[in-house]
């Protein structure tokens, strides 16, 4: 499992006076469960895009294990992400017309053309695990909660060491949100993945060992989560 080292990360967007993100240093041990909180516009999505390699860090280093993903080209970052990161977004990004099972396997199918052995069984297992009873059901006929659970299964089917979710419960009702929150934490623990969740959802935050709080692009001390079940250590150096 890779640990995360971030240093001197600064992200500026044209038209913004202050940097959208300014993180001198951030370290997370492998297998950490971290909630990323902060008001809207504080830079949570920006940070997640950088940590997952969806965007390139313009300055500073983002090192997962021994890979500085800031140094990778676009294609290499795509490949690294495909091999290391499972993503769950606020919107489910499922493809209508395909079944739940097909959606879970779609990125794998597109990446390898021939499915790696065991992937299909893993997909079936994960779908059962997240409570989808009919893997052949077309995704557009699922409820929103079910859709997000299919998305969780898709994020995990390649057994990534890093699981990242951006507001995974924000577009769900309370019950569906709670189910997804529980699943994320439980499944990450099952596979031992590092879990980073950007969220406002108190219930989701409560399930995390550690909380990072962003304000205007800077990390502010939030400390260990007292409600956390199994605290892990993370070194956070708030901006000077």
């Amino acid at each position: 499992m890779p640990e995360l080292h971030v240093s001197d990360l600064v992200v500026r967007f044209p038209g913004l006076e202050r940097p959208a993100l300014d993180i001198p240093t951030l370290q997370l041990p492998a297998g950490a469960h971290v909630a990323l909180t902060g008001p809207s516009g504080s830079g949570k999505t920006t940070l997640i895009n950088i940590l997952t390699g969806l965007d390139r860090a313009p300055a500073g280093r983002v090192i997962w294990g021994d890979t500085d993903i800031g140094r990778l080209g676009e294609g290499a970052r795509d490949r690294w992400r495909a091999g290391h990161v499972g993503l769950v977004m606020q919107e489910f990004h499922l493809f209508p017309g395909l079944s739940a099972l097909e959606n879970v396997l779609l990125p794998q199918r597109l990446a390898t053309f021939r499915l790696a052995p065991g992937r299909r069984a893993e997909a079936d297992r994960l779908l059962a695990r997240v409570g989808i009873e009919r893997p052949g059901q077309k995704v557009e006929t699922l409820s929103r909660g079910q859709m997000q659970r299919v998305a969780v299964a898709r994020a995990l089917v390649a057994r990534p060491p890093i699981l990242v979710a951006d507001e995974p419960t924000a577009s769900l009702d309370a019950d569906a949100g709670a189910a997804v929150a529980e699943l994320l934490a439980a499944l990450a623990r099952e596979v031992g993945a590092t879990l980073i969740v950007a969220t406002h959802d108190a219930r989701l935050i409560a399930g995390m060992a550690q909380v990072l709080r962003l304000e205007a692009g800077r990390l502010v001390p939030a400390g260990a989560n007292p409600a956390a079940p199994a605290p892990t250590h993370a070194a956070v150096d708030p901006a000077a």
Partner: protein
Amino acid sequence: MFRLIAADLVRHRWGALAIALLIALATALGVVVTLEERALRLGSARAAAAFDLVIGAPGSETQLVLSAVFLQPAPLTLLPGSVLAALATDPRVAYAAPVGFGDFSDDRPVIGTTQPLVDGLGGVTEGHSFRRLGDAIMGAAVPRALGDSFHPMHGLAEARGGVHSAITYRIVGRLAPTGTAWDRAILVPIEAVWRTHAPGTHGAEDHGSEGHGSEDHEDANHAAEGHAQAEAEPHDAPDPSEPGPAAGTPARTIAEAHRQREQSDAAGFDAPINPEALTAPDAPGVPAIVVKPRTIADAYRLRQAYRTDHTLAVFPGEVLTRLYGTLGDARQILAFVTLNAQLLVAAAVLLVVLIHVMGRRRQIGALRAFGAPRAVVCAVVWLEAVLVIGAGLAGGFALGFGVARLLARQISMQTGVVLPVGFAAEDGGAFLLLFAIGGLAALLPAVLAYRQSPAAALRA
């Protein structure tokens, strides 16, 4: 990957169908123009194959060819009978056959000619050829049976010509299919036509110029009157042994003349064919003569010899080539219009595809975010576009072929000229070229998808 493309196309089937249809229609337009022009060229060239040299009275060369080869009714000046007589004995001539038009039966041209042209057109497949003056041979596409008889009409029905009610031809043979206007015609011995039209006055009645062009009503009426007069004129009973009518008792009244005439016609049409009638010094005129020269050199010499103040000699092939020149100009204009329509369609299609891809930025970006390689995502978009374009192109070629066939059939039914509609090797090239262009155009949305940043896509 293919499941994704299939699911995507099914989901957007109406839009994809509309685009494919648009492409198909634009393609079909071009295909029809190309195929029809080629078919017209081949078909008319084939139709003129049996006609090496055509001789007529001075006038329009094109009209002479259209009338003699394609049997288009038109008022042509007659050639004096001496021309046919001279050609018949010319050593450079394999055969010279008259083409005497002017009569119709149910809108089918009744053409007076002689045995050599029947043979030149391919001969008789059913029944036998002319033996008596009243024998007729029908073209391959005439829906009549052997043994049927008919009364020829003078001029087309709408031109209100008279019925030669007293004259009856009996169909004794069927011509081999020629794929030309002659398939719709009925051939009769030229002598019979002469007798029908000018008993006792042959040569005086210009039956080639009697306004069979149905539009020319005044002329047609005039011709009909002239004809009636000619028929009402006192005349003699024809002598079967002689080509022209012999002397007899002049009729006293019009009714008497008519009665006499009917009797004489009925009697005369039983007479056997007399080839010498053609070369008789007093043989009546004909509107056109088809000449088969012995050699190519003879053909040119004959054309030279018969380009005089009184005669016009043309190679139908040459006249057709000139016509194609004009046709080619028209085709170019048509092709220009077609091309513009196609460019418009192409632009519209590209726009729609681009808008579609832009609208799906999120989906495309998401594919990459979840681990699909960007090249594959790009290929998916490209393949999808190519499938729709390819379906449109293939459909367009099929549709164009169908429409061209339908048009050709319509033209065949009206003119008898069989138009061979078919694809040539160069069309395959055109298809591939279009397909390649389509493939290149499809690259545009694919590249757009390739360059789509996944992060921006997910944010949007």
